[in-house]
């Protein structure tokens, strides 16, 4: 399983900005890219999406499933795939919760979390889910 994620400064800036703009609510989006021969997921595009959840928006995010479906379809047209998901943790560390673990869709994805405290983004960390879904392991961001 790939243990590194390649992400440009520009993409990181998009994610940080999304987290800051939506604070104190959570935000979420998708990571589009390719998987290199060595298993590294190289992100070519970041897709911020709307949090469509109606309640608990400060600690829960829900993406429109059709937006995800469209992202997969559009990514395929560009020779890319959806290889990860990011979300923000308002006033919490960039460490996945048990809820995050229970709801992680794919063990093949990278899960990026940005901590946003008092409206400013701080740490940004990437994680992968073990194949047995027992826990997350931290992933190196290149």
């Amino acid at each position, binding site marked *: 399983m790939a243990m590194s994620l390649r992400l440009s400064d520009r993409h990181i800036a998009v994610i940080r900005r999304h987290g800051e703009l939506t604070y104190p609510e959570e935000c*979420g989006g998708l990571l589009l890219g390719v998987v290199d021969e060595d298993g590294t997921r190289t992100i070519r595009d970041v897709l911020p999406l709307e949090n469509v*959840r109606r309640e608990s928006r400060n600690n*829960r*995010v*829900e*993406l429109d*499933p*059709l937006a*995800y*479906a469209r992202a*997969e*379809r559009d*990514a*395929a047209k560009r020779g*890319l*795939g*959806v*290889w990860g998901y990011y*979300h923000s943790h308002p006033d919490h560390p960039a460490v996945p919760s048990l*809820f*995050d673990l229970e*709801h*992680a*869709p*794919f*063990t*093949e*994805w990278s899960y990026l979390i940005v901590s946003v405290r008092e409206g400013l983004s701080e740490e940004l960390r990437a994680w992968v889910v073990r194949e047995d879904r027992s826990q997350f392991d931290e992933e190196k961001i290149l």
Partner: protein
Amino acid sequence: MPRISIPAALRQYADNQGTILVEGSRVGEALSSLTAQYPELKKHLYDKEGRLRSFVNIYVKLQIRRKLRR
């Protein structure tokens, strides 16, 4: 025959195909046909009790059957 589009993350378990032709006229039948062809997909779609994982979304003609929620 119905066609199932496979998300990028799961294509490695379906011979790297993006679309699979399946048998069946109902969603359950189509999924059974899919996992019969590609058994490795089963553990990614179903939990140990044989239930469809909560975050698996089924789209039929762009009508969502279940939401993706974190």
